[in-house]
């Protein structure tokens, strides 16, 4: 598995897979993130989609040194199985909540109903959490639905919006700017700061989208 290592700015050491999106690669990244989190010289370990960034304290470790360590860890790493929960999420596709459903359909050469059928037929795995508190990046999008991000991000995407960005799909937990194509909306709260566990989803969770009966 071809992995590229590089520095981003003064205090982030990163790696990314150059190969097609792969679930076993992501499992190895989870395993590596767990190992890296134990290091005191790292401020944050941020898995991405088949990639990972280690944010380090430059007073305590050099970037080049950390990259060497990451290479060694990667070569020795194995896939980690995460405890997986199955979660169904009810979605209102199209309409006000999914203004880009038509665009995604057009891009795919499908009807909006076929897009809904394809999006809700698949089982998705939470590859990692990021972007906003509680935002889950899901792998498993049907190849037919791959749609580029918007040329200019929206300034405000409503909470609960379900979107497609490239070969990824996910749900916006809170209202904020975003560049994905929006195909529907859910009422489920993915982030609640008043709860003891404010974040609903976890890496490894298996998600199914269920079309809500029309409003």
């Amino acid at each position, binding site marked *: 598995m071809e992995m590229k290592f*590089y*520095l*981003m*700015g*003064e*205090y*982030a050491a*990163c790696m*990314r897979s150059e190969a097609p*999106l792969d679930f076993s690669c992501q499992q190895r990244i989870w395993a590596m*993130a767990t190992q890296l989190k134990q290091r005191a010289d790292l*401020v*944050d*370990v*941020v*898995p*991405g*989609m*088949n*990639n*990972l*960034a280690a*944010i380090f304290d*430059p007073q305590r470790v050099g*970037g080049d040194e950390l990259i060497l360590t990451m290479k060694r860890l990667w070569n020795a790493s194995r896939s980690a199985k995460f405890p997986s929960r199955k979660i169904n999420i009810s979605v209102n596709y199209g309409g006000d909540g999914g203004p880009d459903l038509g665009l995604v359909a057009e891009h795919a050469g499908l009807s909006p109903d076929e897009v809904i059928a394809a999006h809700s037929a698949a089982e998705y795995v939470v590859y*990692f*959490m*990021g*972007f*906003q*508190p*509680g*935002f889950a*990046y899901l792998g498993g999008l049907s190849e037919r639905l791959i749609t*580029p*991000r*918007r*040329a*200019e*991000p929206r*300034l405000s995407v409503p909470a609960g919006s379900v979107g497609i*960005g*490239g*070969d*990824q799909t996910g749900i916006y*937990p*809170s209202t*904020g*700017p975003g*560049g994905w194509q929006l195909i529907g909306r859910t009422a489920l709260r993915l*982030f609640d*700061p008043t709860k003891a566990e*404010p*974040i609903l989803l976890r890496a490894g969770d298996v998600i199914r989208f269920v079309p809500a009966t029309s409003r």
Partner: protein
Amino acid sequence: MIEILRAGIQTTVQDLGRCGHRHLGIAQSGALDAPAMQLANRLVGNAATLAGLEITRSAVEIRFHRPTIFALCGADFFASLDGVMISPAWRNRCAAGQVLKIPEPISDASTMRTYLAVDGGIAVPEFLGSRATDLQGKFGGFEGRALKKGDRLPLGLANHGEQHARRFGTLQPLWTSEIRVLPGPEYAQFSTVACDKFWNQPWTVSSVSNRMGYRLRGPVLARETGGDLRSHAVLPGVIQVPPNGQPIVLLADAQTTGGYPRIGVVIAADLWKAAQAPPDTQLRFRQIDLAGARLASAKWAQARAIFEQSAYGKSYAEK
């Protein structure tokens, strides 16, 4: 306690931000001009990590309900205490009941933010290890929001040090529009023409900029290769280029991951300059290498050490 009599366009409780939660999508937050927040805290004898207020250019009035020591650092908004002018980056004493007043902005060209530190810090509860307000997530700080008229904020225990009460001030670094940038991970995917424009053309700060990021206007930067990227970590300072070719400089409230190509990363020592730039000003990016970035950080550390020596006669150890 301090009381907000007039809140201005965006006054928030901030500290140096929260870390260790990026893998949950929790942003860093914290003061956009972190060195100014730090300096204000240290002037009043607080730990650098205590919370203060980030005040965005607009008229603001704050009443102190206890005698205390405070400092304003960052932009110079011509503040006064009961009608007596206050200098930025000075330690000030005030009596209970006195009102700190920031008038309507005098100039559109002034930098954007000033930081108020009060002896003992703003003692709002911590959320995930920080008192910083996350405006997007609506948590942290004071009720997860920008302050409003009538808000009353608790203060922490005062420092009571002799040294801390002595009248004292310092110089702040001068804001300039030149920002030093390291080439980012996807820099090589941009055309040579685009890279040339990036370094040599001025970039105008758009008025839709906020605490998450500054959107810039200028020539369109075309990317030659790469396609749609998979989402990856981003940090404050990262400069993203969406397909419209107009760069965005990410700031403290930025999302933790993104998918737009990263053409550059503002060096840590210059990030405050980006965050202080007023709308419609023109910024210029100057290329620097990692060694240069480290030297710039070392110069900051040296300036801080000199400040600590002259203020307290010893060096300051964080934590």
